[in-house]
Every structure is written in C-alpha cells, then in structure tokens.
C-alpha cells in the first residue's frame, strides 16, 4: 500500500500504468440493468404523446374546413315552381295555413274569455 506522499510523487505515465493494472470490479447484473433501463426509456419515449405531430395537421384541417365553408358558394335548393303565379298561389296557401293555425289559437282564447266572464255574468244576474 502506497502512502499519499508516494502517490503524489508518481508521474502521470506511472499513474496510468497502475490504473490499467488494477481493473475496477463490475457489479453483478449491471449490464442487464443498463439494458433494461434503456429499453424502458425507449418505451416511455414511444408512448409519450407528441402533440407536435398532429396539431399542424389538425390546424390545417380546421383552416381548410373553415375556408370551404366561407369561400365555397352555398348551393341552395331548387325552386319548386317555375311559374311565378304557381309560386304565388303556394305563398298564399302558406299564409292561409298560418292564419288557420292562428285562428285555432284565437278560438281557444275566445273560449277562455267566455269561461272567465261566466262568474262575472252570473254575479250580475244575481244582483239584478
């Protein structure tokens, strides 16, 4: 065993020579553990979501859909009638339908009014 002073007096070449002579012992299973650790790291890397991959594509899809919606002409349905008089007749029929349905509502209101007036009228008759 060399003293600290002896070690300090050794030259660089002598130190390298001594280090090469005494190889450090490798712990058991170190290689296997290193391999496992590397494999686990690779798996974790692969499993981690990479937003940078799909965000540009998704953004492009959104932009394209929005552009299509705004820029493309909105194709409307085909006119049911070619003749304005026939179309007019249908418009009038539509207004008639709306009025008929509204009349149903008005009839209910009138009936409700009559029912609401009944006690008042009865009281009036009694008072007379």
């Amino acid at each position, binding site marked *: 065993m060399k003293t600290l002073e002896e070690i300090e007096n050794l030259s660089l070449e002598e130190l390298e020579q001594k280090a090469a002579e005494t190889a450090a012992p490798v712990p058991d299973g170190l290689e296997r553990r290193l391999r496992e650790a590397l494999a686990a790291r690779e798996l974790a890397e692969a499993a981690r*979501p990479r937003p940078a991959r*799909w965000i540009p594509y998704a953004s492009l899809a959104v932009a394209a859909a929005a552009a299509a919606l705004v820029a493309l002409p909105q194709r409307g349905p085909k006119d049911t009638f070619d003749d304005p008089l026939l179309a007019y007749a249908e418009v009038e029929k539509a207004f008639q339908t709306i009025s008929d349905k509204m*009349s149903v509502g008005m009839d209910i209101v009138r009936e409700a009014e009559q029912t609401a007036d009944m006690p008042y009228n009865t009281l009036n008759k009694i008072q007379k």
Partner: protein
Amino acid sequence: MKRIIILFAALLLTFSAFAQNGKSIYQKYSDAENVSAVYVSPAMFRMIGRIPDLEVGEENVNFSSIIRSLTGLYILNSENASINSALRADAERFINAGKYELLMEAKNDGEVVRMFTMGNDKTIEGFVMLSAEPDEVTFICLDGQMSRKAFDELLATQMNK
C-alpha cells in the same frame, strides 16, 4: 389518434350546429318519403313581386309589399313517422339557436302549434311556424325583411276569409 377523432367530432358538431337554418332543414328532409316540400327562392319572390295587385278572394289586397320583402320560403309537411321527431327536434334547435321569440302557442286535441318571429317592433326578419300532430309535422319558415304591420294585416285578412 383518439384526440384527432375527438377533435373532428367536435368540429362536425360545431359545423352542423352552425349550419342549422331553414335551408339546411329543408335540404335534410325535403327528399324523404311522405314529405311534401316547397321552396320559393328570392329570385322567384322578385318575379312574383312584379305581378300587379294580386287578387285574394273577393278583395284586392296588395300582397306585393310583403312579397318583395321575402327572401325565402321553406315548407315541409311530413307524414313520415320515422322522421317526424327528428324534424321537430331540428326545427326546435334552429329556433332556440336563433333570436326567435315566441309569438303564439296553441295546444288543441294533441296538436301543438308554435309561431315565432325574429326582428324588432317594425320589421320581421324571420318567421317560423312549427305544427306538430301525433302523425304529422308542418314546418314553415319565411325569411325576409317584412313590415310587422303589413304582416299582421295580411294574417288578419286571411283569418277573416
């Protein structure tokens, strides 16, 4: 991949909600079985508006002011039980998504009629009537810039016929 699918589903929902209007409802159901459909375009309304003083019954009512202000009429009358509930739901979604106000609601013998208008005190920009019976649904949608006063007068005239 899962995120992409969720994103596209959200996109589709957004666009479908955005596109919900009288025209889209008409296009969705007009070709279905047992559905009668009528569409009158703005161009046709302009042509009708050129017809001088149109006759309604025995009276001469000048329809032209209202007709000229209309830009679209969509009518769907469905007796197809398999689509009635979907048509009704779509129409209600469209009404709720817009700035429609309930004008009238009447329930009578299983029939529910609701009328909605959109606009202000002077102008009606949209009118929707949704009538639902157990086996029939009627959807009428009018688009335009109608004078509320003229619209009311027209309906009153028709009601007195």
